[in-house]
């Protein structure tokens, strides 16, 4: 990765340090996260992958400030922000577009909730519609859009809030293969352009490789960070990147790490 691109990166660094979370379910306590530590530097795209039920979503909620950890903390640019949601823009798996709002107003929802007047919020969203391939659909209702377009509106709604860190929770999980691949390439391109700090949670290994600078692999419950893999593929990445031998190597490595209970546990990599 060339150093030049780094200079124009936006956003803040984010760090999860020793986060542990236990839930009490019908008397028994269930440890979901065990001393999880990971980090994303400013303008870095980081993914977290893990088997289903490994506590990815819990970690995500802790990051987003929707749940509080039992111990450990979330730090942004070195400052403790555990339990504060105002630093993160969060995009869930379901697009959750509001059927009664037009595309432009759905995209402007976050701004309106921050207290911006509707006309101002629209004015701020308007120039981004073209970048997101939505300019012809600004006045449409969500039901008039395809799944891929809905997801792009959801992403626009997320990024237009201009919060320091963007959290994506399996954003393309509900889409068909072709649309998903299209959107992954598109997101990669968008990220090249804007250099947001992104934390992506997914169980789609190729998606993680294609998009990320670094990938954290979580083990089954109670989750620990099994491994941290630097994705040393050049950028920009495109469809050809999927066919390279390095991509295949990384994919195999990650799949092994995800599946193999026989594979030795790699010690948690502490924050750099």
């Amino acid at each position, binding site marked *: 990765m060339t150093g030049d691109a780094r200079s124009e990166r936006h956003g803040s660094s984010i760090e999860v340090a020793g986060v542990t979370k236990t839930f009490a379910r019908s008397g028994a306590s269930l440890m979901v996260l065990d001393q999880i530590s990971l980090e994303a530097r400013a303008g870095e795209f980081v993914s977290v992958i893990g088997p289903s039920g490994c506590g990815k979503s819990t970690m995500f909620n802790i990051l987003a400030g*929707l749940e509080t950890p039992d111990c450990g903390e979330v730090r942004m640019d070195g400052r403790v922000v555990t339990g504060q949601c105002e630093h993160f823009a969060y995009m*869930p798996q379901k697009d959750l577009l509001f059927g009664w709002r037009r595309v432009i107003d759905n995209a402007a929802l976050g701004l309106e909730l921050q207290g911006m007047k509707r006309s101002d919020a629209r004015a701020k969203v308007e120039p981004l519609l073209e*970048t997101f391939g939505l300019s012809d659909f600004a006045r*449409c209702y969500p039901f*008039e859009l395809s799944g891929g377009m809905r997801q792009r509106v959801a992403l626009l709604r997320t990024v237009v809030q201009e919060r320091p860190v963007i959290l994506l929770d399996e954003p393309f999980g509900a889409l068909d293969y072709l649309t998903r691949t299209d959107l992954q390439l598109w997101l990669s391109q968008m990220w090249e352009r804007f250099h947001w700090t992104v934390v992506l949670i997914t169980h789609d290994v190729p998606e993680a490789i294609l998009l990320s600078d670094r990938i954290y692999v979580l083990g089954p419950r109670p989750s620990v960070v099994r491994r941290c893999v630097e994705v040393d593929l050049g950028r920009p990445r495109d469809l050809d990147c999927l066919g390279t031998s390095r991509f295949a190597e990384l994919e195999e490595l990650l799949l092994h790490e995800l599946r193999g209970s026989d594979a030795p546990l790699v010690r948690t990599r502490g924050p750099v």
Partner: protein
Amino acid sequence: MTLTGAPFQTTAGEPGGTFAPATRPEGRPGWVVRLREPLRLGFSRLWPALVGLAVLIGLWQLIVSLIHPNPTVLPTPARVAAQGWTNRGQLWSNAVPTIEETVVGMACALAVSAILATAIDLSAIARRVVYPLLVASQSIPTIVIAPLFVIWFGFGLLPKVLVIVLVTFFPTTVSLLEGFNATEEEASRLIRSMGGGRLAEFWKLRVPTALPFFFTGLRVAVSFAVLAAIFGEWVGAVNGLGIYMELEKNALRTDLVFAAVVLTALISMILYALTFVLQKLVMPWYSRSRRIERGRR
């Protein structure tokens, strides 16, 4: 595929198809365009009902002309129509107060149910205090309470409005509550993560989610409302279709009672149809989205 082109190309071969943005015919305001379609649909769906009605009326006419009952017992439809037309001025002057009561009563019932449903939705205490009373209120026999309203409040508008409110606020309140509860938890979380408080969540999410439910409740309520107005007049009024029917019944003018019944049914149907018009105006996205979702399935 190259990704270096600066302006991003839209939806390269995106499956699923997209819909062209809706265009509006020149020179027509939005609400006219929005109403044209339901009106057209309404007419095309109405004619089978009209045929059915004609068959029923034909049968009625046939039976009466075969067994020749006393017209004070069962008049022919033709006689009902003719006498109704002759007395149209009287019928209309009695219909106006009934319509007025229904509309005012419904408006009050909606205000009451909006306040109750909002309070119950926002506060757990209100839910525990008000909800049981709400259900209990529905076991008050209207037939007993309506004459009391007349004793307490006289022969004017107020006792009728109270009967209507008592009968109709329940379906609208319950449908609003159901609607609020249909809000997706994930959507609430999204609003909170964006910095929205409870008020923002209520107005921007819970209220729009509840609207389709509300209109279902409103349709139930409207058909009850006309009936409640008639009943309120029946127990005591200066004028109105309810008291008119009672007076004509006592005068053995069964034909005019029937004419008033027909007029009542017409008022009911028109009010019912108006709920669809209102729905179309308030939720322009709704019926079209429903149709498209049905089409995809």
